[in-house]
């Protein structure tokens, strides 16, 4: 939770992309850089009021990001009017994802709230009431790439809420899904996670170079301009598909140009996240490849001496499924 009269100014300095003019009732994806220009964490921030943002982080980084923001608040910009407090445990939050997500929520959210695509579009956020008057929060955000919402209720009602959602969703054949399924869907969607934000990668590597706003100063924006981080053949996040669909594309494998010797000097990059894609009926992966964005269509050699894999893969876009994002805006 980030509150205060200048909380928007504060977040504009914390995130490398623009946050100063985010409208009330809107959520935005944000990328935080370390002071040295390396990507630190990503997440969304929703503006519930002029002076009230809800900041989300990678789960495992919640404490370290709060510490980082507290340091910035107290030591870098003590003149700004910002107050921070963790609300991670105060709210039980569920993702409701899939083509019927809206229909399901309409049975749970109190009828005075308009959930239509016009009334509550992609990236909207709002204080709402559910199940006959309980305060709740709704965010139309999607990590899975589906039409999706995240709904939060005070934690003591979290147990009752999931039972309510499962019951209301029975007619839509709702199923609980875990982080493994979420992991598969986010790889199909090409969404970066901890494997990609691994402490060595920049916004440029992640394919988000243009997100680093030049119209403002933010933590890490200057040092992300260092020559070594902007080289012509910088690693770029791309997708990989096996040439023989029976082959896996295991994470940790290294990538070699066809015909080159397999050694560190010729290393072209590495695979960060891999899964079997039920949508594409083959294994897929995302990872970093030198000048990867300019090499789509190229067949390269995937080598994993540790596991004995050595076969060819095709370089493709990291956005395997619904690249235009039509599902999440439906």
């Amino acid at each position, binding site marked *: 939770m980030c509150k205060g009269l200048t909380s928007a100014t504060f977040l504009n300095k914390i995130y490398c992309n623009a946050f100063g003019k985010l409208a009330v009732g809107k959520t935005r994806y944000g990328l935080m850089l370390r002071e040295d220009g390396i990507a630190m964490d990503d997440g969304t921030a929703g503006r519930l009021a002029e002076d009230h943002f809800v900041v989300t982080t990678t789960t495992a980084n919640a404490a370290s990001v709060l510490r980082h923001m507290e340091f910035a608040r107290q030591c870098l910009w003590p003149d700004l009017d910002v107050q921070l407090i963790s609300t991670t445990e105060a709210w039980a939050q569920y993702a409701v994802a899939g083509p019927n997500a809206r229909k399901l929520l309409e049975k749970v959210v109190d009828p005075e709230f308009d959930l239509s695509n016009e009334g509550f579009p992609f990236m909207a956020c709002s204080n709402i009431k559910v199940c006959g008057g309980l305060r709740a929060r709704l965010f139309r955000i999607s990590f899975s790439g589906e039409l999706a919402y995240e709904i939060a209720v005070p934690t003591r*009602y979290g147990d009752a809420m999931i039972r*309510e959602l499962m019951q209301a969703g029975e007619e839509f054949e709702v199923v609980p899904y875990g982080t493994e399924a979420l992991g598969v869907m986010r790889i199909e969607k090409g969404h970066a996670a901890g494997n990609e934000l691994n402490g060595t990668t920049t916004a440029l590597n992640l394919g988000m170079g243009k997100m680093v706003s030049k119209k403002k100063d933010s933590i890490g924006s200057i040092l992300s301009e260092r020559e070594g981080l902007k080289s012509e053949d910088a690693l770029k996040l791309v997708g990989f598909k096996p040439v023989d669909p029976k082959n896996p594309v295991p994470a940790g494998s290294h990538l070699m140009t066809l015909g080159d010797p397999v050694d560190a000097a010729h290393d072209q990059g590495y695979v960060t996240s891999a899964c079997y894609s039920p949508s594409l009926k083959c294994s897929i992966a995302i990872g970093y490849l030198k000048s990867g964005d300019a090499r789509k269509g190229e067949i390269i050699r995937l080598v994993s001496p540790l596991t004995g894999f050595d076969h060819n893969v095709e370089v493709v876009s990291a956005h395997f499924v619904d690249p235009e994002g039509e599902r999440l805006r439906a």
Partner: protein
Amino acid sequence: MHRLKAITALGGTEPRVDQHGPITLSEKSGFALASVAARVGGTKATTMAIKRLTGAPVPGPGQTNGTKITAFWTGPDQWMLEAPYNSHEKLFEQATAEVKGKASVTEQSDGWCRFDLQGEGLSAVMERLCAINMHNFEAGHATRTSIEHLGCFVICRTKTHISILGPRSSAGSLHHGLLIAIRSAY
């Protein structure tokens, strides 16, 4: 009234109570919390608002004060308000109205679990759990410490009654740690 039924931090429908030796360990679910942090230039207005809410002087570092609504100090220009949940479920709304934009108020009721230790000889238990100097920890004192690697607030209600507020997601681990300490002491 909405149709959802609450559970306690330990997952029960009723708060758990354990008794061992002279000590009673009670899970408490019926409290509301709201954090209050003064905005730039708003310290005086915030302390006045807290005084109106609690009916008592604003607690300084290491202290708690108040009657129905109590406040304890959590940091420079920051306090936590606590009140019974049944009568003050919307404590954060009440506080927001009272501070009139001079402080940021956030609902914290479900961010924390609370366990109360009651009985003679609490020092022997607490000394096994944290670094608080129990000989000087008296009614009206409140501090932050680490218990079982969890950041907790500890509030001394009376010499024989201490409240421990810990992160709700770790309620089970905290409860386990407290029980072990009680059994170790007695």
